[in-house]
């Protein structure tokens, strides 16, 4: 069963239209404080975790069925060239097939990882990242109190402490101005990655690249 979590500080106002349009048969929850990101060490969206019937993590957290092919996108038009679109479609298809395989076969699925493999692949939760989370949360408190400028100072500090967190960076931009998370500053920050990845590649047989 999918369980979708919207890491949206602007809550229903921001996530609602997407949820309503999806008209999903599964729960779509609103996570204004990015609690799930903190609990699972997530730094970007979409990120997925596979949890078995006993409540155990059997895979993830990992990039949920997408890849850096989106970086071919034209920042002005948001148009993605056909070849990149094909790659994104392929990545998604492989990932969804894997999910279906798990749904059917449970622990017998090749995509279910051993405990050791899951542990080895867990994100590194550093002291700096924990401090970044505290700064981010303080920013949220200030944002709620209408202290938008003070909030942004704390978001900046969070970003300084945890520069790998795209969810912190993009949520901060979104709070500054809706749309900013997909604007010129964002694309500049992605370009600045150079050869480094935006999305951690999915470690799964058949994935392109």
């Amino acid at each position, binding site marked *: 069963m999918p369980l979708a979590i919207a890491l949206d500080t602007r809550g229903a106002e921001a*996530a609602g239209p997407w949820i309503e349009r999806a008209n999903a048969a599964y729960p779509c929850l609103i996570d204004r404080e990015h609690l799930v990101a903190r609990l699972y060490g997530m730094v970007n969206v979409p990120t997925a975790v596979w949890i078995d019937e006993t409540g155990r*993590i059997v895979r993830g957290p990992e990039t949920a069925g997408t890849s850096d092919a989106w970086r071919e996108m034209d920042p002005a038009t948001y148009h993605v060239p056909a070849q990149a679109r094909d790659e994104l479609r392929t990545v998604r298809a492989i990932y969804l097939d894997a999910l279906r395989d798990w749904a059917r076969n449970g622990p017998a699925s090749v995509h279910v990882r051993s405990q050791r493999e899951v542990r080895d692949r867990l994100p590194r939760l550093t002291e700096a*990242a*924990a401090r970044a989370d*505290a700064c981010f949360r303080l920013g949220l408190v200030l944002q709620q109190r209408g202290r938008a400028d003070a909030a942004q100072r704390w978001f900046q500090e969070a970003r300084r402490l945890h520069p790998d967190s795209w969810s912190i960076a993009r949520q901060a931009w979104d709070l500054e101005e809706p749309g900013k998370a997909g604007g010129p500053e964002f694309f500049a920050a992605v370009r600045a990655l150079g050869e480094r990845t935006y999305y951690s590649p999915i470690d799964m047989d058949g994935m392109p690249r």
Partner: protein
Amino acid sequence: MQLTVVYDDTQAQVEATPEGERLWLAPAELRAATGWELKPEGACRDDVCVPVPPGAQLARAGGAVDLVALAALLSRPVVHEDTEHVWLVGEAAEERRAALESLEAPDFALPDLSGTVHRLSDYRGRKVFLVAWASW
């Protein structure tokens, strides 16, 4: 002075004395804000007690406890915005790490669009594909 202490899910208005990077609270205020209190065994919360190393200077004459020293003992970060009188105690990295390394999926409670709260643990007995997304 009156200020706000944020600790886990609790936001409490307390009487406290900030002194630079220290924040002194009376024991009752500390307990109200964080659930922690100092006992002979150490710093205690529910069933857990953490020994206080000698020289840690958690309390001073009169009984007031320094929240920052307590947080340091718990390896939790503290940040504060003095223009709004808010002090926030964050989570300890090592606790988060240990929780994840257990491979037990951390539980949480969040609302859907209609306001109904769902817990991850509500779905025990089913495979859950937990996926985080965002409108941004």
